[in-house]
């Protein structure tokens, strides 16, 4: 039985007169990799911002792992709905090391009190070691091991993108949102990322919703794709259907002309 991880009903938001997202209904099921595509300014990032609680929707309803996000703050959505995201423009903690960027995102797992930290208790030590081991494992999956102590801002661009994904995974999400993870990567890096995303899904058994302009990436990684244009969903289907959909072709060509 495949349960629904993300359920969005009639979601919408306006900025002044601009309806950036209107009446979007969408679903991500367990262990599914779903794409969200559309021309520039279609409202994709805004959609992520709505779902993760940065913006309050003007209409509609969001449920993640069956839980309504309505009255939850961002950090509660992350912790209680088990979701995490990356950002279109990289937003790492630049002054923290690679390792610290990952560790800081495992905040909710670290439930020991200040007292046991001060006393360096057994429980604290075991837990700390466990969390570090997990962080190291995640870093090595993304081939970032050996760079633990570098400042995040000193990493090459592609590594920064990967570190953002590692950091998001460190919160132990059931649902991962990726906002243009391949942006700025070359073809080889993108191909590698494609494999990594699939590997992550298989290893951690999570659902992934990914925004990306690179069609080769999207078609290669997604099982289903939603297409957004001017804030509205204009198509949904598997990569083959989307590729052939006249509405989609029009939306993309219309942009180019």
């Amino acid at each position, binding site marked *: 039985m495949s349960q629904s991880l993300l359920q969005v009903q009639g979601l919408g938001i306006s900025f002044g007169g601009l309806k950036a997202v209107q009446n979007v209904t969408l679903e991500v099921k367990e262990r599914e990799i779903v794409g969200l595509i559309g021309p520039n300014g279609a409202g994709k990032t805004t959609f992520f911002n709505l779902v*993760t*609680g*940065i913006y309050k929707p003007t209409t509609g309803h969001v449920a993640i792992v069956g839980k309504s996000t309505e009255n939850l*703050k*961002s*950090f509660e959505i*992350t*912790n209680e709905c088990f979701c*995490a*995201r990356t*950002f279109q*423009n990289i*937003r790492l*903690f*630049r*002054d*923290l090391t690679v390792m*610290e960027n990952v*560790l*800081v*995102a495992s*905040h*909710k797992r*670290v439930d020991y009190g*200040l007292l046991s*930290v001060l006393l360096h208790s057994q429980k604290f030590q075991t837990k700390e070691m466990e969390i570090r081991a997990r962080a190291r494992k995640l870093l090595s999956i993304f081939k970032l091991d050996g760079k633990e102590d570098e400042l995040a801002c000193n990493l090459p661009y592609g590594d920064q993108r990967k570190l953002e994904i590692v*950091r*998001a995974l*460190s*919160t132990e999400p059931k649902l991962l949102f990726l906002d243009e993870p391949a942006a700025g990567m070359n073809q080889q890096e993108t191909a590698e990322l494609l494999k990594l995303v699939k590997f992550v899904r298989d290893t951690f058994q999570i659902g992934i919703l990914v925004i990306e302009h690179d069609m080769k990436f999207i078609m290669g990684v997604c099982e289903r794709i939603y297409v957004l244009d001017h804030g509205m969903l204009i198509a949904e289907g598997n990569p083959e259907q989307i590729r052939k959909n006249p509405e989609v072709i029009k939306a993309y060509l219309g942009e180019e002309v």
Partner: protein
Amino acid sequence: MAEFIQHVINGISLGSVYALIAIGYSMVYGILQLINFAHGEVVMLSSVFGFYVAPYFLAHMDPSIGLFLVVLTVAMVGCGIVGFLIERLAYRPLRKAPRINCLITAIGVSLFIQYFTQLDFVFGAIPQSYPELMSREVYFTIAGAEVSNLQVLVLGLSFVLMVALQWIVYRTKLGKAMRAVSENTEVSALLGIPVDRVISFTFILGSVLAAAAGTLVSTMYPKVDALMGTLLGLKAFVAAVLGGIGSIPGAVLGGLVMGMAEEFTVGYLSSSFRDAIAFAILIVVLLVRPSGLLGKSRIEKV
């Protein structure tokens, strides 16, 4: 030569006190981009707490380092609670408000505490003398300069507290969270960090250091005055700006430079410039290097 060394020693101990206060300004600024003008008042309240509890303990023990530590602990707890309440009641409701609202509120909180403390049934408007927690004596002399036991205490305690702070900020989960939140609140929240709790913790931490500063100041210059926080706070604020506001090592460096500058001004120019020097420094820093000695002049990407 002896005189010069004496000034250096005095300057460092005064500077350590400024540093302890400046750290609080810097940490809060780092996280909220707010200048917490009420921070000086927390220093003052520390002395007021000491003023009230010391006689009780003096009835049971003689002036000693032990007594000092007991009174210090009470002041730290008291100020920690005050710091927590200031943030919770005054600043948190304004989290989404424009920055100017918060700034005006900070000034309001500062004035409120000052005048509340001056009420007769609280502390009163008349300065009182602070109980003697430790008798002052010359601890040792180097090159003819005298170092008092109080100065050793100031240096020792400041050092211990700063090391502890460094440890908290760089080695604990809360410290990591503090640094993350001060870099980016929104991203921190999205990674599941309870931002409000981290902010509370920052205020408590800053206030505990301010409590140490207040107790040290009143032990060195045994006076309690409801308005004493204003000038101390302002000078420490200048120290924080000088060091680069938002940077903890900057606050320490700024504090030490401020203490030295003040001591040398008094020693070699005139004591009437004692307070003016702070503001002269502020003006020069703002003109020459607004980001401060250790501050980063980061270009904001939009």
